[in-house]
């Protein structure tokens, strides 16, 4: 009957690229052979609506079954029966073009399933899509049909059962306006308030004190990475802050009005707005509860996207979430996506109703899954099928004790605060190498705790819901169907056996989706690093840029100066000079942190009046007596390896040219600082300042151009965030002995990290003082 009723009908679907929409389109194409589908798709930045439909709908594994059934005919069938039109439910009039307007006006049924399903969407975004979306669709349809003189289509709007979850006991399939429990505010006022909230938050984010705070945080994260990167990051922090304000605004407004979150709140008002603005348009509202992977159609376990329960479950399985609050007796209302799709299609196939009505599709009333049972099933499954950590050990999942939400939130907040403080402190420590990597694990733990807190705050309410969503009308509709339709379009949640569903369908599916390690074996991370390393050391042409200090040599310009300045002093003078430098150290360090270029210019003044020729000879001794002893043999070997592969190697350093001269044979090019000379002595002024920060990135790009190389052929080795612009500009960046900040960034971005050490016991000096005897020496 369903197929017959819909045969020859044109059905429009919004939200076709989403989880529910994809399943809906697939089912219509596969099981309702006579119908035609019009998908309203928002064009992407680069992709047209038609391209998006092809890539994001038809390419999805949802269609594997139909593709298998039709074989080569699939493409022609899809082309004949699925048309994509450009449209955006976030815009008044849906942003349709002429063709779109025509197609939409000739539809018999319109299924509106587009929504912002994220529970932590900013208030205004949720309002635009979830609250205004349905009434925009309704208004556009009325207008188009009036224009075209066509009969009004049947609008099936997908909402959520959670619109009336705020109370205990039965939640009936009644219009939102008929609910006894809900205090519905005026949605137009809510709209105005949400738009105001956006501009208020934006204005507040531009307050000087707040901007200073963002700037401080950017500096804390990136160090001296240069103005451009810091500005970018500061702006990102500002935008994130505005978003966070609006997320919070949504959450608090929703809670104040009795909904668990902004999603349910905006969906509720969306229903109200739709009822207010529909005119004569026939409207049916379908309310599913939490939609999860398919029970049978198109195949058991099919799911799209990583949605609400999945991250929580995976976090639990990975041992990151050891507690999740909830009431064991409460019902977690989950419904497989194919049941929802069947309900929508059945509704669409039914007579166009004169009055709006509601169908709910949920499991709670007929076949409840209690939270306690859900947890037991999940735990049992992961005990038998554990995930593996990166040391190849199976992860033992925790036993939940169902604590109160407040207690868990309190614990997590405290942990987050503590780890945050530890992280800030650790970032200030002057550590590098393996210690720095240790520090970056604090950061990881903190972000894990943060995420856990997010989950608890977002989804906590869903494990505490005590409303029971009635589905009598849906079951009535189901039972009115003939036997064949009932077999093909299962809508009755009573058929679900929760243990089978979870153990054999849902959990295996999401574990596969999450790409987590389900067996001990080679680390995927290691292989990624290996791949990067292979690309770095390939025989393809490469431009390889090395930083010097702490990348190739564990020393710095101050040490070189101290050594050179003490070369011809007697022991007493040496002590005085070094004492003076040490007293100055904090100031120099601060200056270096603030601006590397300024620091170098300031510091090199000290060379004023120094005899140039003598210093150049001293530098050779400096190389053997200090620098080479503090060099990383692995680093030198790496440079040589690149050279033997025929790569162009470049050294970019703030050190003085004559100091790094002994390294000349290792590099195709050395970019260093040059001091001015007058009558055989140094002037103390830099005639060419070494590039720092973004200038290094620019220089690298210039060199790349000269060698005719693309970004992918650029390799950069550096140790600190001050070289972040250069590392970012290289296609193949490597962090060498990274300080804590860079270690964290490198881990996040998957950059290879090298730990290069000085050779053991070669140099035990604490101070970089010349130990060579002053006086006559050999002349080469």
């Amino acid at each position, binding site marked *: 009957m369903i197929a017959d009723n819909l045969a020859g009908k044109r059905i429009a679907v919004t939200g076709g690229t989403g989880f529910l929409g994809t399943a809906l389109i697939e089912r219509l194409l596969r099981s309702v052979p006579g119908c035609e589908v019009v998908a309203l798709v928002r064009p992407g930045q680069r992709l047209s609506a038609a391209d998006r439909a092809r890539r994001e709908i038809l390419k999805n594994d949802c269609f594997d079954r139909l593709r298998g059934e039709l074989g080569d005919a699939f493409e022609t069938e899809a082309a004949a029966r699925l048309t994509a039109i450009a449209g955006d439910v976030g815009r008044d009039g849906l942003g349709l073009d002429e063709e779109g307007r025509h197609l939409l006006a000739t539809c018999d049924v319109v299924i509106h399933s587009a929504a912002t399903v994220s529970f932590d969407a900013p208030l205004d975004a949720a309002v635009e899509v979830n609250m205004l979306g349905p009434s925009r669709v309704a208004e556009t349809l009325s207008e188009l049909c009036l224009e075209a003189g066509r009969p009004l289509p049947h609008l099936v709007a997908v909402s959520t059962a959670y619109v009336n979850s705020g109370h205990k006991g039965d939640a009936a399939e009644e219009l939102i306006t008929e609910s006894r429990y809900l205090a519905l505010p005026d949605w137009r006022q809510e709209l105005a308030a949400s738009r105001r909230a956006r501009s208020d938050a934006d204005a507040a984010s531009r307050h000087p004190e707040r901007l200073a705070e963002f700037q401080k945080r950017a500096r804390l994260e990136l160090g001296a990475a240069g103005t451009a990167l810091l500005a970018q990051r500061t702006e990102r922090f500002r935008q994130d802050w505005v978003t966070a304000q609006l997320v919070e605004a949504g959450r608090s407004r929703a809670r104040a009005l009795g909904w668990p979150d902004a999603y349910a709140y905006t969906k509720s008002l969306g229903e109200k707005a739709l009822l207010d603005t529909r005119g004569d348009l026939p409207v049916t509202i379908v309310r599913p509860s939490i939609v999860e992977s398919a029970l049978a159609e198109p195949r058991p376990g099919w799911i799209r996207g990583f949605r609400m329960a999945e991250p929580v479950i995976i976090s639990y399985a990975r041992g990151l979430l050891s507690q999740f609050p909830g009431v064991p007796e409460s019902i977690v209302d989950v419904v497989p996506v194919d049941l929802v799709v069947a309900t929508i299609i059945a509704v669409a196939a039914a007579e166009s109703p004169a009055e709006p009505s509601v169908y709910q599709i949920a499991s709670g009333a007929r076949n409840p899954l209690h939270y306690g049972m859900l947890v037991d099933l999940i735990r049992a499954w992961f005990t038998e099928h554990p995930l593996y950590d990166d040391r190849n050990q199976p992860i033992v999942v925790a036993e939940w004790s169902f604590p109160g939400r407040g207690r868990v939130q309190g614990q997590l907040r405290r942990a987050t605060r503590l780890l945050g403080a530890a992280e800030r402190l650790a970032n200030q420590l002057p550590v590098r190498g393996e210690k720095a990597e240790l520090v970056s694990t604090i950061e990881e733990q903190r972000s894990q705790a943060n995420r856990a807190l997010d989950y608890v705050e977002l989804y906590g309410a869903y494990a505490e819901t005590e409303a029971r969503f009635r589905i009598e009308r849906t079951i009535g509709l189901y039972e009115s169907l003939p036997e064949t339709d009932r077999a093909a379009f299962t809508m009755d949640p009573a058929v679900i056996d929760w243990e089978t569903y979870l153990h054999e369908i849902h959990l295996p599916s999401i574990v596969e989706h999450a790409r987590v390690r389900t067996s001990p074996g080679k680390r995927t991370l290691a292989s990624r690093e290996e791949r990067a390393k292979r690309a770095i050391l390939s025989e393809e042409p490469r431009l390889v840029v090395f930083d010097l200090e702490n990348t190739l040599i564990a020393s710095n310009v101050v040490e070189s100066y101290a050594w050179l300045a003490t070369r011809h002093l007697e022991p007493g003078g040496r002590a005085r000079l070094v004492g003076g430098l040490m007293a100055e150290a904090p100031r120099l360090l601060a200056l270096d942190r603030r601006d590397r270029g300024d620091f170098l210019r300031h510091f090199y003044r000290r060379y004023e009046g120094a005899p140039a020729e003598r210093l150049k000879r001293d530098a050779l001794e400096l*190389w053997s007596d200090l620098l080479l002893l503090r060099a990383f043999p692995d680093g030198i070997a790496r440079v040589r390896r690149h050279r033997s592969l025929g790569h162009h190697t470049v050294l970019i350093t703030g050190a003085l040219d004559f100091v790094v001269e002994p390294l000349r*044979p290792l590099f195709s090019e050395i970019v260093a600082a040059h001091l001015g000379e007058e009558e055989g002595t140094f002037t103390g002024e830099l005639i060419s300042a070494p590039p720092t920060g973004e200038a290094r990135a620019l220089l690298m790009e210039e060199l790349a151009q000269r060698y005719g190389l693309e970004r992918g052929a650029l390799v950069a080795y550096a140790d600190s965030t001050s070289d972040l612009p250069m590392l970012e500009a290289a296609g193949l960046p490597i962090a060498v002995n990274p300080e804590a900040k860079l270690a964290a960034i490198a881990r996040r971005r998957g950059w290879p990290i090298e730990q290069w050490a000085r050779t053991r016991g*070669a140099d035990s000096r604490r101070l970089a003082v010349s130990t060579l005897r002053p006086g*006559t020496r050999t002349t*080469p």
Partner: protein
Amino acid sequence: MSPRPGVVLEVDRSTPPTLFWYGEGFRLEKLPVGSRVIYPPEPVAALADPEGAIRHALENPLGDSAPLSSLLTPGMKLTIAFDDVSLPLPPMRAPDIRQRVIEAVLEMAAQKGVDDVELVAALALHRRMTDEELRHALGERVFNAFAPYGLLRQHDAEDPSNLVHLGLTEEGEDVELNKRAAESDLLVYVNINLVAMDGGHKSVATGLSSYKSLRHHHNVRTMQHSRSFMDMHRSELHSSNWRMGKVIAEAGVKVFQIETTLNTDTFPQQFRFLQRREWEWNLADRSAFLASSKALEKTPPEIARKIFHSIRAPHALASVQAGEVGPVHVRTLEHVHRQQLVTVEGQTDILTMGLPFISPYNVNSIMNPILVACLGLGYFFNLYRGRPLVREGGVVIMSHPTPWAFNPVHHPSYIDFFEQVLADTTDLFEIESKYEHAFATDPWYIHLYRTGNAYHGVHPFYMWYWCAHALNHLSRVIVVGGDRAAVRRLGFSPASTLSDALEMAEDVVGRDPSITHIHTPPLLLADVQ
């Protein structure tokens, strides 16, 4: 009282534990009853008037040579070459014998009105000496008179403009020499003959030559046919050098060879117990041993190394002879043998040795694993005349901490040799054919050798070749107390204790093996009957 000769002690129940050198430290080991311990002869008497002896040697040359004073004429070009920092070991107390000899030569040259004089350190492919080391070897006066004017040079085997090809030997070996030395009217070579391998034609033909020349005798084949290289009559290394010496003479290079031998008075007062036989230790020796062992336990390795490398040996001049290379060296060897030779009856199944902190190639530096191998299997194994101390198929057990540590200034190519070459193979011929050329011609190593204080890129290969005879001869090498990974990389077996090592050795040589310990330094040369 004349010094006592060397002795071979048979260990019995009453024998006190034997001192094993262990890098910058010592171990006392109880050797099984019946083991033999070879002790070196006591230091021979020092020459009472070294200056007088030197002058006498210069004016009374051996062989076909006129007295030095008659060879010096105004306007001539004189070059004085001298052995580098690898000799003697440990460095001797000031004044260094080179200083004494060179001062005598310079004095004579000044009297004769010679003013074109240059000093050359005969480095071959060794690292350049530091100014401090040159000052020590030559003395402040000589250094200050020559160094600032560019007249004190170090032989640069990679400077083509300063090398001259003198021809080929009858075996077709290239003879390439330091140009200044070859083109001088007289080349005076000042040697220190610490072990029997040193000196003779090897001084000039090796010390002042280049890779092109050296490769003819510094290779696996030659080293396998030098049995041992401490015995010039059975050493292919020496035969080759002597052939080159002939070519040098025929090319008209006039060499006046001055060879010196030192006595084996190796350690200063506080370490005197190191050159005494354990059963003769008195209270002072025992306390010194205890005090230094306890102190060393608590000392970080870098500091311990500094302490040991600051040891200046009280070595005294035992003989000096000058003149024509051949006859001079014959006399020199007599003196070396007089000081070092110990008669040993028959070979042994297991040879044990304690390796000290120093070898010729890590003066003021780190004894890296390759140098450990070279000291044990190159030098100590070869301290024999006649037959090797250990039988063919026997085992060498050596004690040394063998840290995985390198001096990046002195031994840059060693690091890569260890990390790349030995990680691939320890096979001598494979290493020689597959890797030697690349290391020898690597521009970075050449740069460091010429401008820094680095051994030449090819030098670690020579160290490995030095072990060639031993590696062929032995069936197993065990290192007691070494870094396990480093020892394995060398292809040897690590053991925690001497008794473990002996157990492991028995697997190879059978039960109740004969064991011999070579108690050195001070140095000895075993005359195996």
